[in-house]
């Protein structure tokens, strides 16, 4: 005689499976949406009217192209006079800089020059770091990609913005520095391979 209780799922089992599947669907949807937002932001940041413009940020008007690395950083209006100077101290084994210092021409007169960072001054507004995946911070021991989370990987290197606005050599108004810092920071993930 067959034992009917061994056929199919009982109600509790069905509920468990449905709940698990439901959780997986919700989780997957959340991850999908999250990634979709990032992709949208990254793609849109290279255009005049990116998706973030409607969220209070001003549209990008230019790119800062780092020719040594073949990458570009979209610039919003707050930092559209940005320029860079390659670090002469931080140099990769390929001879290319591992950092470039960022400055704003409008803040140069305050002593906030990017070049000063190559001459013992903490005068740069910020920097873009070129990090080899797996590279760790010599002080903390943490993965650099975990410490500078606003970056992206391009052609095998991880590029991320580093805030350096604690510069004692730079006497620009703090509000201006913070605004430029926020503008650079917001575009870290929009670094992309340079277009010709």
């Amino acid at each position, binding site marked *: 005689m067959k034992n009917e209780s061994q056929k199919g799922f009982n109600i509790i089992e069905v509920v468990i499976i449905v709940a698990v599947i439901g959780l997986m669907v919700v989780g997957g949807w959340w991850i999908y949406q999250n990634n979709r937002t990032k992709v949208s932001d990254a793609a849109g940041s290279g255009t005049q009217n990116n998706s973030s413009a409607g969220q209070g940020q001003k549209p990008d008007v230019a790119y800062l192209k780092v020719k040594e690395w073949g990458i570009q950083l979209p610039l919003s209006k707050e930092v559209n006079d940005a320029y860079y100077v390659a670090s002469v101290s*931080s140099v*990769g084994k390929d001879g290319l800089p*591992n950092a470039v210092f960022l400055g704003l021409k409008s803040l140069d007169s305050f002593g906030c020059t990017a070049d000063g960072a190559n*001459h013992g001054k903490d005068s740069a507004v910020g920097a873009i770091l070129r990090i080899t995946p797996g590279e760790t911070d010599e002080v*903390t021991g943490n993965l650099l990609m975990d410490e500078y989370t606003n970056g992206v990987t391009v052609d095998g290197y991880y590029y991320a913005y580093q805030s350096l606005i604690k510069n004692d050599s730079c006497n620009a108004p703090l509000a201006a520095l913070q605004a430029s810092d926020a503008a650079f920071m917001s575009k870290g993930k929009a670094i992309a391979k340079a277009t010709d």
Partner: protein
Amino acid sequence: MRLLRGVPSATMIKAAVLVATLIGTIILPVFSIPKQVDAGGGIDNTRGDDWNTEEVAGSAWLDGAGVSIYSNGSSAAVHSPQKDNYIDNSNGVSTKTGIEWQCVELINRLYISKGWISDRWSGDGSQMFDNAPTKLSKEADGNITYVSPGDVIAMTGGADNAGHVAIVAAVSGSSIKIASQNTTSVFNSAISLNNKTLTTASWSGYHMTGVIHHPGPDLPSPPAGEGGGNAASWAPDRMDVFYNGTDSHMWHNWHDGAGWHAYEQDPPGGENVTLTSQVAAVSWGSGRLDVFARSQSASLLHKWFINGAGWSHWEDLGGCIIGAPTVGSWVSGRLDIFVQGCNDTGINMHHRWYDGSWHSWEVVPNLSARISSPPSVVSWGTNRLDIFARGEGADLIHNWYDGSWHGADSQGGCIIGQPAVSAWSPGRLDVFVEDCNTNGPNVSYKYYASNAWQPWQTIPLNDNVTVTSMLGAISSADNRIDIFARGTDGVMQHKWYDNIWNHWESLSGSIAP
């Protein structure tokens, strides 16, 4: 029969589904949690050690002249509860060195304990260059002329923008080894000095600010057996010799991979200060020379050379001395000067030393006999000095310091003038003298090895050379001795031992009697 062959039962399917969901919801996430690496600890992974663990003893770096380096624990952040460290400065005043065990604290503890600074050097790592005490010289990146052990390398940047500071532990060519507190590795050799710029392919996120030099001499490792005569060696293939010429000016020559060079007169640029004694020289490390001589007013003169920075001018260190001084160095940054003092009575061997600053003259303690020639000193290691001079009975007298001064012993013999001494390793001494023989070769020597003095003997392969004074002896490596003397014709004579004694060679020159 419950099962058809090859067809799973409903129960098995249910079990499989449940197991799969369990794996998917519970077990897999567990595996996706970042793995906690067992750090293991040690000087290459201080994050694996508990806070307050001593990673490196002070005796283990800067040639024994360092300070302890501690672990800050698993994080670079300030340890909780925060604890400040204090040490006595050179004035005996309890002085805060910083937060245990941040990078800045190490710099302060070293500099205060050395007497290089007396107050706390404040700031985080990124501010230390700007905040350097005024008595310390500093050079910004891009304009760095030299780096030497004991200097501070400062950086800005870092994940929290607090920067970092480290001590230069050693320099080899352009390569710099640094020692740090609150880093994953205590030592790091990834920084070089090229074109006046600190360069590194490592230290991503940190930006070199510059170098702050510690005051006075630098701290490379001293070669073993630096004697107190006219010669010095900072590497096995490097010798520097000096003499006071018949023109009463210092002359300098050196030997490197290219052989002997031409003599130069009192660098830099022929300063031509008048000297009234032979020259004593020592090197406490690569690229460093210190020379001493007697001035016209019988005081002690000093000048020094730093590779990359060149020669200093003479400085007058005072005192009243007879004949040539002698200088030894047991550790980087340490100079011990001994002279025959001008006093007519009492003990007449005087001493002053430099260990970051100059100390006053003292009469060498525990001596019971006067000396009748300038002394000669050598150091075979940290805290060890052996001093030789001609006693009032023309014998060789010997005194030594190994943490305390000992009474002099007589090594007999009959000697004329200042002896020369070298030590090629701890426990080895070779003493060379102009002996009292007035007919023929007159260089004799004796040596100390295996805790015993060997008898006097005439130097082998003497070539029938007669000398009119011993100038110096050095050991640039194990089983290597170079001795220098003034010949009867006033030229410099050189002879060396490299497991066998070699012939005398003339190095020309015109040496004052």
